[in-house]
C-alpha cells in the first residue's frame, strides 16, 4: 500500500469537496453548513465564499484572485488566510486534491 502523505496546499493546488462531504444551505438555520465524518461546520460568510470556489477546477491562486476582485486587501494577506483555511480543512480530510 502506498504510504499516506499529508497534502500541502500551495498556490497551484486544486482542491475539491469529496463526495462524502456535504456543503449545503440549511433552510432551518438560514446558513451554509459543512457535513463531514463526525464533523459539522458552520462556516462564516468569507469561508462560504471560499468554499464555493473549491470545485476541483480553481487553484488556490485562482481563488485568491477571485477574492481580490471583491475585497480591498493585500494579495499576500488574502493568500495567507485562504491557505490557512484550506490547509486546515485538507488536514482533516474535509477537502481533498
Amino acid at each position, binding site marked *: *500500500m502506498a504510504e*499516506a*502523505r*499529508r*497534502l*500541502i496546499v500551495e498556490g497551484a493546488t486544486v482542491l475539491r469537496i*469529496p*463526495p*462524502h462531504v*456535504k456543503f449545503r444551505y*440549511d433552510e*432551518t*438555520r438560514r446558513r451554509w*453548513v459543512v*457535513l463531514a*465524518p*463526525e464533523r*459539522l461546520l458552520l462556516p462564516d460568510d468569507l469561508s462560504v465564499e471560499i468554499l464555493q470556489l473549491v470545485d476541483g477546477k480553481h487553484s488556490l491562486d485562482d481563488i485568491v484572485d477571485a477574492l481580490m476582485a471583491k475585497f480591498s486587501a493585500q494579495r499576500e494577506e488574502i493568500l495567507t488566510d485562504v491557505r490557512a483555511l484550506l490547509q486546515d480543512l*485538507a*488536514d*482533516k*480530510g474535509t477537502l481533498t486534491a
Partner: protein
Amino acid sequence: MSDAPTVTRPAPAEIAPPLALLAELTHRCPLRCPYCSNPLELDRASRELSTEEWKRVFSEAAALGVLQVHFSGGEPTARRDIVELVAHAAKVGLYTNLITSGVLLDKNNMAALTAAGLDHVQLSFQDTDAANADRIAGLDKAHWKKLAAAKLIRDAGLPLTLNAVMHRQNLDRLPEMIELAVALGAQRLEVAHVQYYGWALPNRRALFPTYEALERATEIVEAARARLKGVLTIDYVVPDYYARRPKACMGGWARQFINISPAGKALPCHAAETLPGFDWPSIKTTSLRDVWYGSEAFNRYRGTAWMPEPCRSCDRREIDWGGCRCQAFEFTGDASRTDPACALAPDRPILDAARADALGPATEFVYRQIGGAPAR
C-alpha cells in the same frame, strides 16, 4: 403508517434546533463488550420500533433541522431493514453515519448500504491482538471479521473512522492501534478511554487504568497527532475519573442531540434512561418537535437556570454546562448536582473514592447480556 398526533408549536427563539439524531436501532449485538454503554436493562427485540416508525422519525428530524443521523445500537446492522432506513434518512437530506462493530458486514449489504447513500462508517476495534480482542468482545473471530469489514468499507469508497475503546487490558497496544488505523486507510481514529456508565460500571476494576498508564497514553496520542498530521485525525477522550473539569456531556443537555432508544423513547443522551423521576416522551405518541421544544424532560436541565452553585456563578457554565447529569445522579443520587468530575464540585470526594476503588484488585469481566448484570 402510525401517525403520531402532531401539535405544531412555533420554535421558541431561545432554543436552537437539534444538530444530530442518535438512532439506537436495536440493543441486539453479537458482541458482549464489558464496557458497553447500553443500559443494564436492554430493550428486547419485540419492543423495537417498526420500519415505518423509524422512517417517520427521520422525516420529522430533517424537518426540525437535524443535520446528521448516527445509526447505532447495539449493532444497527442486526436490523433487517437497515438499508431501507439508511436510504430513507439520506433521501430526506440527513448526513448518515453507521456506528458498527462490523461483524455482520459482507459484500452484499456493504454494496446495498453504499447505494442507499451511506456517508460514513465508524468501526470499533477492541484490541490489535486478535486473541485478546475476541476475548474482550466475547465473540470468536470478531477481530478477523472487523479487519475484513474495514477493507469492505474502504473498497466501497466510504470514509472510515476507527473507534478504539481503551482500558487496562489493551492500553499497552495503543501504538499498534494507531498503526492499524493508518494501515486500514482510516481518516480518523477515536481513542476513547472507557467512561464508567452502563456495563462499564460493574467492570470498573477490570478496566480502569492507572494514572501513569493514562499519562503515557496521552503522550503517545500527542506524538502521533504531530507525526500523522494530514494523514490521520485522532480524537482523544480521557476518563472523567482523572479529570479536573467535566466534559460538556452531549454538548449540554438537550442542546444538540436527540437520542431515540430502540423502543422509541426520546432521551437527551443514551444514558439518561437510568435517571428516575422522568416521563420520557415516546416518539410513538409525541412529535419530535414537541419532544425538543415542549417536553418537560428535555427542558428540565436545558441552559443554566436549573444549575446549583458552584456552577451557577462559574464562568465555565456555558462551556461544560455543569457536566453529566447521569454521572451526578450515579454518584450523589441527585441529577441536579454539579458533576463530581469537576474538582470544584462539593461532591468531589465521592469521585475520589470511586477512583480509589477502581484502582483496587482487578476483577473478571461481567459480559453484556440481555436480562441485566448478574448480582455479585
